[in-house]
């Protein structure tokens, strides 16, 4: 090594660690080197409230020897520290018990990652100035103040972005490199209401290409609209009602289903979806696709955490369970072919008509705009969660709702999905439209 303080970076650093692991007697090794630059500007009271900026980096390695396995990471990339880190390459792994299922997938499994430009990195990031970031946050806060008027209690507006890059090298021939940018604009807003309540709203829009960010005015309008929708909220009587869950909060609900799809849950007897491949687990309206190839998608990728090539995969097709989410390790333990350990972008295709039309057809129903807390039991499928939203009649909100719950079991819930309405939520890895269930237990007074 030469005398520079940081002689190795990126791919070279990963290759160096791989070579040192091999020299130390590791049978196999995978190294991930990453770096990230992050800037955030937040405005409140027409002033910058928080300006934060930094670069981080780190190295993570997994080592394998005769079934022994360990993973370790360090941000300390000073040559002397790295030497020490490299000198202990096997000490952690050899303390653990051998596990015959541990290992890397092998060269033949990696194939060639698709030669696609997923447009994950926006070159415009490099020229974005601190002044422009201030401008976005300042304008968003000002627009919220103008729109909300005298009922406004509190607003904060944020613009943040990052540029990150990773290199992955494995001793059995995998090599991956990905660079990505993200730009986020959004805020929190609260209004004055009767009885000391302060209805609050949040909107955070995130994209990979800066030009895809929504206009500041549109974000402000949504913040104010959502907070106003919570004015005067209260409970209604417990009942079983049609329930519509907005796409942006469907994640909590879907999360309970996804947890049971995972290889570890399946292998450990903690999944209500074990042994159900090919069976009906939902209504014909329930389709779920893991799509890693959406251009500029926040979850898009060419390879997964095991280095397996990304693939578009139907998880649920017209209500029939088609695939579990099984990584390389649990595929060996379960004796099945791996799919992927973690989904990329999850798409629930829209049914074709708008939310308003769907609401109109439902008559009296609950529109859920927030899920608060709640949880699901992946072993049994039972779930229960707090909600806020509106009671709708004839397609229109007639009463703001708060302090209520929905509950049930996933094995029944998805059978009651009658429609996916409106546009999918665009600002996340979960691209889900509003989910329309014809009957869910709703509890209130």
């Amino acid at each position, binding site marked *: 090594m030469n005398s520079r303080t940081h002689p190795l970076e990126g791919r070279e650093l990963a290759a160096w660690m791989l070579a040192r692991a091999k020299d130390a007697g590791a049978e196999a090794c995978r190294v991930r080197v990453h770096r990230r630059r992050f800037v955030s500007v937040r405005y409140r009271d027409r002033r910058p409230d928080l300006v934060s900026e930094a670069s981080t980096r780190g190295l993570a390695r997994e080592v394998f020897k005769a079934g022994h396995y360990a993973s370790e990471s360090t941000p300390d990339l000073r040559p002397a520290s790295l030497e020490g880190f490299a000198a202990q390459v096997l000490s952690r792994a050899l303390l*653990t018990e051998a596990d015959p299922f541990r290992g890397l997938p092998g060269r033949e499994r990696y194939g060639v990652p698709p030669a696609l430009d997923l447009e994950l990195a926006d070159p415009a990031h490099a020229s974005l100035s601190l002044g422009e970031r201030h401008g976005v946050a300042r304008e968003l806060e000002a627009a919220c103040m103008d729109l909300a008027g005298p009922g406004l209690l509190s607003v904060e507006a944020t613009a943040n972005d990052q540029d990150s890059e990773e290199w992955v090298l494995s001793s059995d021939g995998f090599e991956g490199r990905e660079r990505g940018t993200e730009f986020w604009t959004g805020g929190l807003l609260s209004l004055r209401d009767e009885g000391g309540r302060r209805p609050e709203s949040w909107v955070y829009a995130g994209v990979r290409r800066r030009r895809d960010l929504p206009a500041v005015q549109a974000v402000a309008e949504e913040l104010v609209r959502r907070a106003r929708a919570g004015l005067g909220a209260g409970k209604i009587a417990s009942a079983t009602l049609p329930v519509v869950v907005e796409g942006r909060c469907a994640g909590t609900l879907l999360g309970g289903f996804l947890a049971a799809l995972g290889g570890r849950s399946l292998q450990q007897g903690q999944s209500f979806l074990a042994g159900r491949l090919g069976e009906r687990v939902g209504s014909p309206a329930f389709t779920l696709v893991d799509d890693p190839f959406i251009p500029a998608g926040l979850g898009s990728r060419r390879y997964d955490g095991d280095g397996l090539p990304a693939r578009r995969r139907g998880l649920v097709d017209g209500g029939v369970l088609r695939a579990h989410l099984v990584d390389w390790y649990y595929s060996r*333990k379960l004796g099945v072919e791996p799919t992927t350990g973690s989904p990329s972008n999850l798409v629930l295709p829209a049914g074709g008509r708008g939310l308003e039309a769907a609401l109109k057809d439902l008559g009296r129903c609950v529109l859920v705009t927030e899920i608060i807390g709640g949880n699901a039991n992946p072993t049994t499928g039972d779930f229960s969660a707090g909600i806020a939203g509106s009671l709708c009649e004839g397609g229109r909100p007639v009463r703001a709702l708060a302090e209520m719950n929905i509950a049930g079991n996933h094995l029944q819930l998805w059978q009651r999905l009658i429609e996916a309405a409106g546009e999918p939520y665009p600002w996340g890895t979960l691209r889900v439209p509003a989910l329309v269930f014809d009957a869910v237990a709703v509890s209130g007074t």
Partner: protein
Amino acid sequence: MPAEIEGYFKKEFGIDAGLCRRLLERALSRGGDFADLFFEHTVKDWAGLEDGKVDRSRGEVILGVGIRTVKGAQVGYGFTQDLREEAMLAAAATAASLVNQAARPVAAGFTARRHSGFYSTDPARAGIALEAKIPALKSVHGLCLGASPLVSKVTAGFASSLRRILVATSDGVLAEDCAPLSNFSVQVVVEKGGRRERAGWDLGGRREASTYAPAAVEGLARRAVDRALVLLEAVQPPSGTFAVVLGPGLSGVLLHEAIGHGLEGDLNRTGASTYASSMGARVAGEGVTIVDDATLEGAPGSLHCDDEGTPGQRTVVVEKGMLTGYLHDRISAGHYGAAPTGNGRRQDFTHEPIPRMRNTYLLPGEAAPEDLVREAGQGIYVEDVANGQVRIGEGDFSFYVSQGRLIENGRLGAPIKDVNIMGNGPRLLADIVRVGNDLAHYHGGGGLCGKNGQLVPVGFGMPTCLVRSLTVGGVQAQGGRP
């Protein structure tokens, strides 16, 4: 005489008083009220058991410095993992860029703050080596399988960390700490007649390695299995509004969500909290006194000093039903003209400190726990709480009951599970009818509280408590019609 930094960061990274001064001077080179440095070196270690083998482990290091310039409530923040002077000066310049005024001087010297023994800071006693975790984890497998023939799967994880920090401020405070945190958690799956349930138990906190003696591990396994076996008989309860008896210990999550967050100084300073205009007002009955406490020995939220260098302390937020104080960091304390309460915490050096809870609990009353169940008549008894959340402006909170009992005719009845409970914070406080004499604290070290994208370890405590009414998210509607 300026106090020299004698401790860990000087020895390991060459961080001395002169360097701290230079960084602070850079952070205040364009003005500001004060600046601070937060050095962190955290070493984390985890080992896991699955299918009878301790076949996985993970090590992680967090190392870096966060540099903050503060003017009023405005914050400039730069951080770096690179502890060379030039990289740290660049981070200080980032922090300084917030303001554009004349430089502000830095105090001539540093005074080290004193701390008391809320936990061991001796790595030799508080650190838990991987070698020590493996036999403990290994034993849990057999203990759980031996406890009941219905146990089909056992998983366990044993995590520990040592978090060393050094805080230096432009007004001359120097604080250094080494805080251990560990958690041993066991989950079991039980099966009977085609029905399958899973439950677990934790043991942890800022504890010494000796906590995890064989008898304690045996108790941990026994509790995990007992919890799971009860679930085999449990149902989701009916939905509606019921009297709720909160069992001792973990149900303190409810206090954390229902009132704790609402009392964090930043959320009141900005007017976002439902409690923003309640200071000095009656918010609960005479029997309700709530504290947030950094001084509980071994508890996961205890702190010798917070991440701004303020000494750890016990803060009474509600005294005999009256709202007496908010939880402050330096910025919110400045806004209210109050003293910081030692609640300025951060997930790690990449984040600015904000007001956060530590160990939050309700002081015990005089009622016998069984009397509260009798008084409830019909309702829900809460034993285990998995997670919670609050909407800070409305005060509406949610907590998920993983295990409990129905209360029927004043007695504990059938076990229940997997039910979310919703309520409103201010109304809940007013609805606490009676408080039991059996205060208990969360037994684990895995309780994390999330706010503004930052997770910090916290503790909870609760005596048995009777609440007049809460919304229970069960499955069978009572009194409602489709």
